[in-house]
């Protein structure tokens, strides 16, 4: 058995945490070859080669792959697929875009967002916003899988796998990149942060959301948000935590002015310690919170910032 593992690379940069967590998940499945794809990815390939458990790195550097478009990357992976029993990637938006396309081209079912590897054919995955865990056994010859990072520890670095450059596949010419709108931030990344401070509709406005960010900065935390906060324009879309946003499991998750809808809980209920600040003592978020504070957030949050 052999695994082709798609490294998460954005603008030439390896997302080490997401990739290394996927290596941990894939280790029981066989010998791991990491595929790095990008307009520039030689540095990322070199870095991926240091992840322990990786036997080999393939580096496909070509302009075609510069903006993570699904169609050319899927064609490349399909051209390599014959050598592997499993094709895996971290369940990022890039992989969610790409993996089902690869699976369909191989005429196999994709297995999205797995949370455990039972054996080479059998995997566990959450369904219904994490309200049920399903164990599925695949009858397909090639397994195409995305891996939920929040449940796996990152593999260590210190290895030194070989890196081999490979050529590009042909250009399907179906789509082109126009622009990225990415907010630069010095804060830790949401899915790998040790502490996450999230704000919801209760925060009330974009201006007041600055208070949530200030608390996060005091704690060296990442900032998250509920769907309602994103829909209302208090926070950007990439901060959304939940069933259809990001899934996080930090040591400490602080939910402020968030009611605790199942779709939100789906993205954070595996956090080690959960704190909720809400003025409604009946709010469902208190049913999962280790520490609940029934209070007006406009009173509690400034006090909390001062107390830290």
């Amino acid at each position, binding site marked *: 058995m052999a695994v082709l593992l798609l490294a998460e690379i*954005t603008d030439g940069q390896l997302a080490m945490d997401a990739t290394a967590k996927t290596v941990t998940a894939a280790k029981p499945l066989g010998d791991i070859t990491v595929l790095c794809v990008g307009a520039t990815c030689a540095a990322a390939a070199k870095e991926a080669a240091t992840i322990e458990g990786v036997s080999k790195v393939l580096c496909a550097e070509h302009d075609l792959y510069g*903006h993570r478009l*699904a*169609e050319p990357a899927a064609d490349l992976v399909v051209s390599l697929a014959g050598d592997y029993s499993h094709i895996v990637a971290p369940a*990022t*938006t*890039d992989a969610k*875009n*790409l*993996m*089902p*396309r690869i*699976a*369909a081209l191989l005429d*196999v*079912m*994709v*297995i999205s*967002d797995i949370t455990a590897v039972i054996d080479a054919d*059998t995997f566990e*995955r959450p*369904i*219904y916003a*994490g*309200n*049920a*865990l*399903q*164990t*599925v*056994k*695949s*009858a397909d010859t090639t397994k195409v899988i995305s891996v939920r990072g929040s449940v796996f520890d990152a593999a260590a670095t210190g290895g030194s796998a070989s890196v081999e450059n490979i050529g590009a596949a042909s250009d399907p010419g*179906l*789509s*082109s*990149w126009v*622009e*990225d*709108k*990415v907010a630069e931030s010095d804060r830790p990344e949401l899915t790998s942060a040790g*502490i996450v401070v999230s704000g919801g509709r209760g925060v009330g406005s974009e201006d007041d959301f600055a208070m949530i960010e200030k608390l996060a900065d005091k*704690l060296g935390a990442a900032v998250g948000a509920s769907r309602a906060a994103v*829909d209302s324009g208090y926070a950007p*879309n*990439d901060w959304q935590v939940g*069933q*259809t946003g*990001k899934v996080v499991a930090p040591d*400490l998750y602080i939910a402020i002015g968030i009611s605790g809808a*199942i779709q939100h809980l789906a993205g954070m*209920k595996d956090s080690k*310690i*959960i704190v909720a600040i809400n003025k409604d003592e009946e709010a469902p978020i208190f*049913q*999962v919170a*280790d*520490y*609940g504070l029934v209070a007006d957030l406009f009173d509690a949050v400034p006090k909390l910032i001062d*107390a830290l």
Partner: protein
Amino acid sequence: MKVLVPVKRVIDYNVKVRVKADGSGVDLANVKMSMNPFDEIAVEQAIRLKEAGKAEEVVAVSIGVKQSQETLRTALAMGADRAILIVAADDVHNDIEPLAVAKLLKAVVDEEQPGIVLCGKQAIDNDMNATGQMLSALLGWSQATFASELDIDGDKAVVTREVDGGLQTIKVNMPTVVTVDLRLNEPRYASLPNIMKAKKKPLDEKTPADYGVDVGNRLEIVKTAEPETRKAGIKVGSVEELVTKLKDEAGVL
């Protein structure tokens, strides 16, 4: 141009899901079912394309049990012109996998020749997030997933996508498959007169055999389990107490 909108009948998003005691699945007997919320957004977008003069006809299609008719009637009441139901299961607990759904949708596309297919990004029951991408692959078309903005201009569509780092805008060749995200629009409610009118709109019924597609699953469901539930902790009386607990008891500060 014709717009094809696949809509799935799923458990209503407000219902708390319960796993069946024998671990064979979740209990869908007598629970409220609704249109997948992302698909409402897709239907809304299709209707807006028609209202903007960029599309002539909106066709909704659903694959599943016979009762998916209700979901299609909802789409028709919102403003879709016509519906196709592919009855592929006789039990709500038999979910058709995205690969089989994509194959059926491809057959419908071959017949209907739409200029665009608007899928939801994810069905909130299986949480697969796969069908649109799979359909696009089978058709050899372009794909634009997780759309929060969509603009069609001749033989291209410009789509802004919600991605992990923020937003990405791409330009795709038409025909195309777009999967829609939460921020694309706010779906309308069907008015009572439109609900009445929808009853008279055409709804074709088909079977997978009509399209020669095998809907057998590739993934065998070994078991379905309840996740570990989290117990509520304690309420603290003040910010000071919270900080003390986090430092001394939880050790996370």
